[in-house]
């Protein structure tokens, strides 16, 4: 692919393990190079500044999703799984699935889960703390960030209890598969088929519980708002996009609060900060770092024309750390207003489950705030490389009961 002479070019591979586990220096260089840069390593364009990323995410007419939101171009390559009816679709195909899921996962529809999830969080934290009244060391990832969503979300969808161990590796592979075919994808591909088969089997009407998000989706099909062919794929979207993302969002909020004791104190003493805490962590950590779009037409950005058919990387994590928009972006700060962050994406495809993630986080953090005086690191956290997500593999924490 040719680029105009004014387009900044980099030969750094943003999907190398070095960049994936420490992306901030690459992001800063990307933003400083200009509004768009050509990534020679993968023959694609990348945007890292807040204004352009947000504008492009909003502009579905020129930046399409149906050619895939990973590096692979579905117009030339067969996708590894049937494309998502939400994430990997454009209007008008996207309209009905989005409308149905927005209603099922909207803030008001979620009210029926609120008390149950808050009670589950209290129970969960109680069990971790035990009755000794002494500090407890846990891995914040497995014991909290993974365990709590797995405790409430699959039940809310209404899937079988057996086999839920497939959920996390399925999501892990899915998010790796949005990137290039590197060693991360190769390693995950070994078992990806089994995970996907299990996930697909959960989406059928007869395997879902009579109540829950899954049943709600099938009820929409009964009303004619979806077809019977669409319904299982819409259920699949919940299981694909609704688990790992929340897990790593929780990982970032726990890491932020453990490493910023002053912010934990604010969280506990100022109820008004609770509304922004999880979103500030999603901005600060940006668990979903990247998604791609495909140029529907030649799109001029700054001095560059991104040619029709080119893939463009939208660096959400970079936009959320753009000092052109955020004051001291590297600071995790509950007194910041994180409104407008692009950690959930933006525009038509903005995370339809964001209210679910917020409710899970609110429940868990409220239970911790109630029962834990201090959260502190109990060892070095361990990063895990993923082609799309910024993850902690392990977060050793010490919880001091109140």
């Amino acid at each position, binding site marked *: 692919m040719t680029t105009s002479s004014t387009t900044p070019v980099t030969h750094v591979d943003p999907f190398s393990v070095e960049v994936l586990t420490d992306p901030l220096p690459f992001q800063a260089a990307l933003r400083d190079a200009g509004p768009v840069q050509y990534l020679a390593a993968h023959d694609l364009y990348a945007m890292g500044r807040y204004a352009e990323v947000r504008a492009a995410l*909003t*502009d579905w007419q020129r930046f399409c999703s149906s050619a895939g939101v990973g590096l692979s171009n579905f117009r030339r390559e067969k996708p590894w799984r049937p494309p998502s009816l939400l994430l990997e679709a454009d209007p008008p195909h996207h*309209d*009905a699935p989005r409308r149905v899921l927005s209603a099922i996962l*909207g803030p008001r529809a979620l009210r029926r889960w609120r008390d149950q999830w808050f009670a589950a969080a209290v129970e969960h934290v109680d069990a971790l703390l035990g009755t000794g009244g002494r500090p407890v060391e846990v891995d914040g990832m497995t014991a909290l960030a993974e365990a709590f969503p797995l405790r409430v979300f699959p039940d809310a969808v209404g899937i079988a209890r057996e086999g839920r161990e497939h959920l996390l590796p399925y999501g892990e592979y899915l998010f790796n598969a949005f990137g290039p075919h590197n060693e991360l994808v190769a390693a995950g591909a070994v078992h990806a088929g089994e995970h996907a088969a299990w996930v697909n089997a959960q989406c059928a009407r007869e395997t879902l519980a009579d109540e829950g998000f899954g049943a709600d989706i099938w009820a929409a099909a009964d009303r004619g*708002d979806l077809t019977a062919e669409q319904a299982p794929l819409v259920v699949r979207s919940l299981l694909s996009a609704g688990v790992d993302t929340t897990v790593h969002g929780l990982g970032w909020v726990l890491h932020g609060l453990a490493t910023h004791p002053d912010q934990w104190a604010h969280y506990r003493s100022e109820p008004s900060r609770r*509304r922004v805490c999880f979103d500030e962590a999603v901005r600060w950590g940006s668990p979903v770092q990247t998604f791609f779009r495909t140029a529907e037409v030649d799109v001029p950005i700054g001095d560059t024309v991104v040619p029709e058919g080119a893939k463009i990387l939208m660096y959400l994590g970079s936009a959320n750390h753009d000092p052109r928009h955020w004051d001291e972006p590297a600071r995790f700060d509950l007194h910041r207003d*994180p409104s407008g*962050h692009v950690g959930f994406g933006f525009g038509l495809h*903005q995370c339809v489950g964001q209210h679910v993630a917020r409710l899970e986080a609110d429940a868990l953090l409220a239970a911790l705030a109630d029962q834990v005086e201090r959260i502190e690191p109990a060892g070095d956290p361990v990063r895990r490389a993923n082609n799309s997500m910024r993850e902690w593999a392990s977060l050793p924490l010490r919880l001091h009961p109140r």
Partner: protein
Amino acid sequence: MTSLVVTAKDVVADGVVALTLARPDGGRLPDWTPGAHVDLTLDSGATRQYSLCGDRWDPSSYRVAVLREPDGRGGSQYVHDVLRPGDTVGLGGPRNHFPLAPAPRYRFVAGGIGVTPLLPMIAAAEVLGADHALLYGGRRRASMAFLDELPADRTTVVPQDERGLLPLASWLGTVDEGTVVYACGPGPLLDAVAALVPAARLRTERFTTTEVAAPVRDEPFTVELARSGTTLTVDASVSVLEAMRRAGATTLSSCERGTCGTCETTVLAGVPDHRDQVLADHERAAGDCMLPCVSRAASDHLVLDL
């Protein structure tokens, strides 16, 4: 309040004008889906709902079509006789109570100006590759808008003075399982369609003349934040959300266009003027919450749980 400027006003049939609307800065308008309508607040003080009938791939303009209704309450006469390019109108929405359900086959039935919400549906059906056809009736050919925009091979045009009433039964035939019928027009037409089509396969939108519930106001109102005890004044130049932010309240928002639901706030007292795309009608009527990024007050005073 979001204001749009009339960039064009065109006569598209006898008694029908199409308005093209844009943001004063030419920027991107909120996204919409086929079947959606907007609330337009006219300078005369009236608020009316109009179906969007333009091209959703054009993010910078909306099109609505307005039939002159001599017996109406004056909104349409104002649009026809007074409103001019360059004038502004207030915008609420867009919202969609008449969405296109996915189906392999669509049969569209339009009566008169009822063709407007069906135009973008027909465009969508084409892109979706669905089998679709339109039966379009009107008093006279000259009174029927957008004939030149409809696919001739899929449209049956029935001007009443030439061909009589719509041949509904013969045109619809047997409405089988894969077919969804969309009908929009006057009540008697919809009743006739309903008599022929099983309810589960029929979606209609009735052109009613009910007043948009909340009175819309330009005058400033006060917002009391119950938890902090702060009271602030919100004038027409600023959103409730922005006013709260300036007063130092903790707010969280995202889209700031009334679509994502992030800023939903509990209303303890007062009457919100809902302008979002999120809340259903019964939720609006309950009046116990609002989206302060776009919604405002219909009463002098609002008390919010913040």
